[in-house]
């Protein structure tokens, strides 16, 4: 059930991203829905689950057409995001502000991780200007969307598994 809910959210996010969100001519960039979903689920499930979920989501994002970059780059970035967000699991009195902060940090981490590996591989798309642009845009748009997306995803994840608080060691 847990897996089903997570998979459904990630796949929906991926498809909505490429078929709808990316077509909206927003200035300078666009929100990244997958980061939002990974963060929202990791906040409920913890770092281990977050890392695995992030990795698999990234893997899917790496192959969903029209992606055209080296496989594994988003898997790497999102795994790190999932782990980092998962560290804040269980913070019962987590405020909305804190959630937004996690989303901002997660989005920035995703962009930097993806661009960093790209720079190492000599990807022509990664320039300082492009990085700055994408970083600012993704963080801002994700923060704007966070109050709408994160509670829905986290809430559904909690309902799917009321007892569990992630994979305990």
């Amino acid at each position, binding site marked *: 059930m847990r897996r089903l809910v997570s998979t459904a959210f990630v796949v929906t996010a991926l*498809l*909505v991203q*490429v*078929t*709808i969100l*990316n*077509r*909206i*001519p927003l200035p*300078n*960039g*666009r929100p*990244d829905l997958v980061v939002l979903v990974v963060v929202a689920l990791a906040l409920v499930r*913890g*770092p*281990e689950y977050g*890392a*695995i979920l*992030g*990795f698999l989501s*990234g893997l*899917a*994002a*790496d*192959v*969903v*057409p*029209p*992606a*055209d*970059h*080296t*496989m*594994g*780059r*988003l*898997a*790497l970035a999102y*795994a*790190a995001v999932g*782990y980092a967000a998962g*560290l*804040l*699991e*269980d913070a019962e009195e987590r405020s909305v502000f804190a959630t937004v902060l996690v989303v901002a940090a997660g989005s920035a981490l*995703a962009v930097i991780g*993806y*661009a960093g*590996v790209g720079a190492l*591989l000599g990807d*022509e*798309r*990664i*320039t300082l*200007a*492009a990085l700055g*642009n*994408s970083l600012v845009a*993704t963080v801002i748009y994700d923060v704007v969307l966070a109050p709408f997306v994160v509670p829905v995803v986290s809430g559904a994840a909690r309902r799917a598994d009321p007892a569990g608080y992630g994979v305990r*060691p």
Partner: protein
Amino acid sequence: MRDSRRARLVLALLLLTAFTLITLDYRSNAGGPFRTIGNAVFGPVERAVADVARPVGSFFGSLGHLSSYRADNAKLRKQNQALREQLRLTDAERARLRSMEQVMGLAGRAQFRIVPAQVIAVDGALGFEWTATIDVGSRDGIQTNMTVINGDGLVGKTVEVGPTTTTVLLGRDPKFTAGARLEGTNEIGHVDGGGRQPMTFTLLGSSSTMKPGDRLVSFASIGNRPFVAEVPIGRIVRVFPEPGQLFRTAVVAPFVDFTSIDVVGVVVASPRTIRRDSLLPPSPRPSPSQSRSPGRSPSPTPSPSGTG
């Protein structure tokens, strides 16, 4: 905060796996098996989603162009009362029909054999890529490295082909490079996509000259792959001053509006020869305009057809 050795171990393993994947995929250059699988698995789903989502997408898409529509409209009002009425009536369906006609028109004049297609998804990772998925694939005879056009000109080239979907590298992508020729001359060079920076044209040969307003058409690749000849690309808007430079570079305003591509055509066959500059819009405007979409001016008179 809750952390554990186990979670850290899992993370380390995943990162290692990701690095391994990256290395493997990087070495196996173009595509690799994963992306083919991605196209085969996600392609049909994207097609289905795009069918449902198209009205939403085109609604938002048109929002971004309200100002240019308005400018067009004002111009047309002076020109043609009937056309203005028509523009007012324009809905998404009619716009698509019109762009389909334009693609067919361009292809007809060039005698290209094209496979018409619809854009169903755009842009890969995190706003760094300018790519599009179109709803035709190997079953429709599409192969990698084919020219993709729309009614305005060069859109891009195919890079990854699945059974029913194809990934197109758009002309705006920083990875995109195509041979180009200056209108009315033999001067050649290459255009390069710039991402969020403007597209540029580099003229090979230091003796030749170019000036704002000059138009560019594609220069055929060997065996017409990936690029067929004569497809309009754009108009030069600014030439960089080049003290002591061997090659001259200019900023290009592409004819194609990459933010709202919808109906495209994949060129699957091209005639051996195409008359020079025959595919450029019929009447070059006297003033080099700075407008965002120079190729879009609707011409009331039908363009001279077929070069035979």
